[in-house]
């Protein structure tokens, strides 16, 4: 073992191609969104307008918020199957207590974020599979929602309606909101120093523990953030629909998971992208009904068509990932 004068620098080509493939993959969500937009523009040019976007992306904000919520648990290698019914529960609280007894409403919503934090602690301390715990919790949230609002009804607080119906000049509100959500979460999770620790807990938990970080704390923080964005999602949803229903958020569980994956995230390994997740949510929201309606696909087939779009995009991602090798 002798130290030699470094006459040559080892080549770096495999890494360059890995970086290129990664780049391509991170562009894929944006690419699929662009494709969906182009298809819509081609089918119905009038939809690409201030008013059209407001209509089409109406429901995208709550979906984007729910997707971000899901992304936080996925960043820690967990999965939240209760986010849909949780959004429904928050919706019911928002349409009733938050309007009639604001203090109680705020306390209940804060308490529900606390419950999420406790779930994180429980999952970490008892080493429980998050799928089981959150599946159980999904029934709890649903039951609570039905208790609060046995039949559809209630009304959104006026201040919430005012925020959601805000019409900024030039840029449609949903797009502005999506940009804001993506920017805030990207900064928090991808750029701050504690965000690195949160993502690291999904990448290599053992390494983090050896460096002296508390994994209990990272898990609690990730779950609490999920709760926080779940609450925001439920409130945004009620702001748009103006009244609530205990089943209003049920579809969000799978939509949010699909949004994270569509946006370039992975189920394990702490590889997530907030910007991608928001784009994924927008794509899903657009592909869900406006695109398919413009294609004259009957509503009966829309769910299946939506699934087909998902499969195509994910297949493209797998093809690109394979080139990383």
């Amino acid at each position, binding site marked *: *073992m*002798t*130290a*030699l004068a*470094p*006459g*040559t*620098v*080892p*080549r*770096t080509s*495999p*890494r360059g191609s*890995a*970086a290129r493939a*990664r780049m391509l993959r991170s562009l894929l969500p944006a690419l699929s969104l662009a494709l969906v937009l182009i298809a819509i523009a081609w089918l119905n040019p009038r939809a690409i307008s201030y008013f059209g976007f407001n209509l089409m992306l109406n429901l995208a904000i709550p979906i984007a918020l729910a997707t971000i919520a899901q992304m936080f648990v996925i960043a820690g290698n967990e999965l939240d199957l209760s986010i849909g019914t949780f959004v429904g529960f928050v919706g019911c609280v928002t349409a009733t207590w938050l309007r009639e007894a604001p203090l109680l409403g705020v306390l209940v919503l804060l308490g529900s974020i606390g419950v999420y934090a406790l779930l994180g602690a429980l999952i970490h301390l008892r080493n429980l599979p998050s799928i089981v715990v959150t599946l159980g919790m999904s029934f709890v949230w649903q039951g609570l929602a039905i208790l609060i609002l046995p039949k559809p009804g209630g009304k959104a607080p006026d201040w919430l309606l005012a925020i959601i119906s805000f019409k900024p000049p030039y840029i449609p509100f949903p797009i502005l909101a999506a940009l804001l959500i993506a920017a805030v979460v990207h900064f928090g999770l991808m*750029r701050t*120093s*504690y965000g*690195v*620790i949160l*993502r*690291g807990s*999904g*990448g*290599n938990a*053992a*390494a*983090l*523990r*050896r*460096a*002296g*970080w508390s994994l209990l704390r990272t898990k609690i923080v990730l779950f609490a953030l999920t709760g926080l964005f779940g609450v925001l999602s439920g409130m945004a949803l009620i702001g748009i629909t103006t009244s609530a229903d205990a089943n209003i958020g049920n579809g969000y569980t799978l939509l949010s998971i699909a949004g994270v994956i569509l946006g370039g995230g992975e189920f394990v*390994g*702490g*590889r997530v992208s907030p910007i991608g997740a928001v784009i994924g949510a927008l794509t899903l929201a657009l592909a869900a009904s406006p695109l398919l309606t413009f294609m004259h696909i009957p509503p009966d087939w829309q769910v299946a068509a939506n699934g087909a779009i998902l499969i195509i995009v994910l297949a493209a991602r797998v093809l690109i990932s394979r080139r990383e090798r």
Partner: protein
Amino acid sequence: MLQAIADIVRLNGAEKHFGAVRALNGVDFHVGAGECVGLVGHNGAGKSTLMHMVAGTLRPDGGQIAVRGNQEASYSVARALELGIRCVFQELSLCPNLSVAENTRINHPSLAGFGWRRKAADLIRAKLDEIFPGHGISADDIAGDLSIGRRQMVEVARAFTLTREPLHLVILDEPTSSLDAHTAGQLLSFVRRFVEQGGSCILISHVLGEVLQHADRIVVMRDGKVVAADAASAFDRDRLVAAMGGAEGHQKAAAEARKIEAGALRVRARPARQPDDKELVARAGEIIGLAGLAGHGQTDLLLAIFSAASRARTGIEVTAPVALVAGDRQSDGIFSQWSIAQNIGIRSLARLRNGLLISPQREAELAEFWKKKIGIRTPDMNNNIYSLSGGNQQKALFARALGSDAEIVLMDDPMRGVDIGTKLEVYDLVREEAAKGRTFLWYTTETEELDNCDHVYVFKNGRIVANLRRDELTEEKIIQSSFGDAA
């Protein structure tokens, strides 16, 4: 060293049990300031357990630990870091989803607030430049994209970065296992510089030459005890091996005796970017070595040969079934959820079939045969593969390849981090199988392993630059061709 040196860390009567297994059995161990202590012993001798204790990741079941003369009652990782004790663990402990700079941040709580990214990047870049000049790593690279050798370089450099916490002792557990001779040399000479400036190091390595040359004092462990401790100058290779126990009686001569007969052609391969007509040729019964600096196309060629076996590729001719023994066994070799027996059987499913299903009985027979043949140390082959020590996991991967119908076995530097006893057993097995007519293509970063080969091809920048017969094989020749301009 004879003069009294201030202790950095001292353990008295340290004990650790894992169930019925006594991993550490009353160990006394200390490291002084400005001292490099070499720690050697077979896998499972208790070295890693002892180091986990020094680093604070494991609590001793008995005994005391003192740092700079003060007893530490509640010793932990956080406390160890506070006292300037750090560890580079054998299992790579970078977060693969984070960049090099972000991985640096994880070890430095004080890298926070405005501009932390730039600070972290500068810190790790400067240290990499200092230890491994010409490393070719950028602070923005994602750790998972780096080769295993570069990941190890990042990890070592990270341990030596300095912010608010002091730095007195760095534990290096197999730091060179994935590095080629050149970068390993850079690291070891840095360690000497660090020690001369008053720092301390614990160097664990299976490459005895490294320890003999670079440690001040050597501690030998066996079966959870310290069996010898003396100045490095008092040891030589034979005395070390004898103290470690178990591996005596082997010598290179076993390899010398092999006579070579040209058998049938098995592999003829030309690297994709080979400008001239040099090509790799392997015949039945040959052991072919692939040498050169790490990451210069050896693995690529092995993988190309592997895929050529199932699908025709230009420039590569393969005439028999192929099996691959992966080098990065955690990510490329092991099915982590499976038992040892399942891990061995996966390459031989066609033979293990009974009708449409896999016969558990045949799988168990295959596993049992290889357990005896290759000496996998486990009470039950149905245990999870991770119940084995690293060396035994690697044996299971060898059993997977050798138990299959493959006539050509590709080895992608499979012996990194494996103790010398296991290595010698595997070398014997490889020679025995070659004598029966199997062909081995063996990429290795350890020059000593090339002594087992009949032919060695040296790689540089994805090309074959030299083809050495075993009688003309020397370390100088290999290094010369790895660095020389086109040979």
